[in-house]
């Protein structure tokens, strides 16, 4: 018994209230989902965790933030930003890889490793909600990583000009495709990364696997894109997640994306834009299906 409990009540009677039954409200599925989602999002940035867990995500945030500040400064000096809003994701692609490779294992491999899942699945939490909450948390984290710097650049661009309606309108029409493009990045990389991470409880293996899937596929694109057939060249981008996303971006937001010096780095998709869109959708749905199947099995174990 602790000291404060031994302190006499005003009447001078010592109370040990013992175990109390809980009769208050119990929240429904949506609130539980929200709790798990917020917990996942905090975990992604190491909040509520040890200082060690904060180092890597915030290092990446610092680099991305630094790039945004740099771009805004260049914009202020020469009147043209280093990168467009939409082009920001392409420039930061490697950082996104490393961010997903570090965060996805934090979200799912840790739970597998520690054996925590039986504690989740013996509660009124469907395994689908667990998967979707983790996925939503990771996708939001990636989207914030790419979107927040764009918003910063937007704010700087708008408030350093004289707030002329024309300028604001121009910036908004540039910004929205950028944020949407970041969303495609977030969903695709979160789904693929989470699936790879869910296969192992060893965080190092999971991180290595994710980097391998994201990077080892790019040489295939390189080989296919120098083949002597223009059809093969234009479909080559489907072979790697990075070029697949870029292909979707070029198809949907060609004007915002293919502009200035980055045009050279963008993938050549020819008339196959819809194919890129379809393949990206299929990849996302397939990975999600595999994730859910994986956790159906884990839940019953």
């Amino acid at each position, binding site marked *: 018994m602790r000291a404060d409990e031994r302190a006499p009540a005003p009447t001078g009677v010592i109370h040990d209230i013992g175990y109390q039954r809980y009769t208050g409200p119990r929240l429904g599925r949506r609130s539980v989902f929200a709790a798990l989602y917020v917990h996942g999002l905090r975990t992604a940035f190491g909040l509520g965790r040890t200082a060690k867990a904060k180092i890597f995500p915030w290092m990446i945030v610092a680099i991305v933030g630094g790039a945004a500040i740099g771009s805004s400064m260049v914009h202020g000096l020469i009147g043209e930003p280093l990168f467009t809003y939409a082009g920001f994701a392409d420039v930061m692609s490697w950082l996104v890889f490393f961010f997903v490779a570090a965060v996805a294992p934090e979200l799912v491999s840790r739970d597998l490793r520690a054996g*925590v899942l039986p504690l989740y699945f013996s509660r009124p939490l469907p395994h689908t909600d667990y998967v979707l909450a983790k996925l939503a948390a990771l996708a939001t984290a990636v989207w914030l990583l790419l979107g927040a710097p764009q918003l910063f650049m937007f704010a700087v661009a708008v408030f350093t000009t004289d707030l002329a309606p024309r300028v604001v309108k121009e910036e908004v029409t540039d910004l929205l495709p950028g944020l949407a493009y970041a969303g495609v990045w977030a969903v695709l990389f979160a789904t693929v990364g989470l699936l790879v991470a869910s296969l192992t409880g060893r965080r190092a293996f999971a991180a290595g696997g994710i980097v391998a899937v994201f990077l080892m596929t790019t040489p295939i694109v390189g080989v296919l894109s120098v083949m002597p057939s223009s059809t093969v060249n234009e479909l080559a981008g489907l072979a790697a997640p990075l070029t697949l996303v870029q292909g979707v971006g070029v198809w949907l937001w060609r004007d915002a994306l293919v502009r200035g010096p980055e045009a050279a780095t963008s993938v050549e998709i020819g008339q196959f834009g819809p194919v890129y869109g379809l393949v990206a959708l299929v990849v996302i749905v397939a990975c999600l299906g595999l994730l859910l199947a994986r956790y159906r099995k884990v839940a019953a174990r």
Partner: protein
Amino acid sequence: MTIISTHALTKTYGGGVTALSDFTVEVPAGIVGLVGANGAGKSTFIKILLGLLAPTSGRVRVLGLDPTTDAPAVRARVGYMPEHDCLPADLTAAEFVTHLGRVSGLPRSVARERASEVLRHVGLYEERYRQIGGYSTGMKQRVKLAQALVHDPDLLLLDEPTNGLDPAGRDAMLALIHRIGTEFGLSVLVCSHLLGEIERICDTVVAIDGGRLLRAGRVDAMTSATDVLTVEVSEGTEELAARLAALRLPVTREGRQLLVPVADESTYDVILRAVADLDLPLHRLDQRRHRVVELFAQKETSRAS
């Protein structure tokens, strides 16, 4: 009141392994022991109760609900403590139990409040703000128990709660479970392979072997008839056996030991007096611990007769 009832419950795994076979039992409220050797089907039974596994055939009700169709409703009212390690090393007990309270549907502030409260009830005070990775096995078992209690369930399912504990830790854990069943007023199903532990704290025992129900009944009814004293003397075993037989005690010999069924309290005194009269060096006199094996052996003999 019946908390768990099954009828002809059968579970066959994909590989043709039968984990539960024609298992029919009615479990009353209170502290219930589920006893069986490793692989007898205890864990399969618990997973079916939680709706994590679907039975191959048969009917099951937990707190009047069907876990095969209404799993979330069952799980909301049940707390589960798994057998194996299930705690993250890098969180504090307070954070972890709070988080699981929220997953069980408690509002944020309530979850935090109840987490501290149940951690205090299981005997963790200031330690609860330390990372779980630094805890002893006994403290980890307490955290596992606390997370099962945090959402105030009506029924606790505890899978081998004394696993890995030293004798003192075992006693403390058993005392705690007994308190939860009596003072807290929750029903508890304790799985164990040690009948001795179950006997000490449970009102009812369900014995399971090879997926079949062996026996189910109240502990006092089941064990009083089978209590046996073990007597061992350094010399003169024959003499003592003869003397006890003359005193109309049904003695049987097992190696160097004599086994005497306990008729009532006076059996102890009779034996002690006989040993003293013969002036024999008494090596040991104790009540034999029942093991699941013995229950099973009795079943075999009763079947044969």
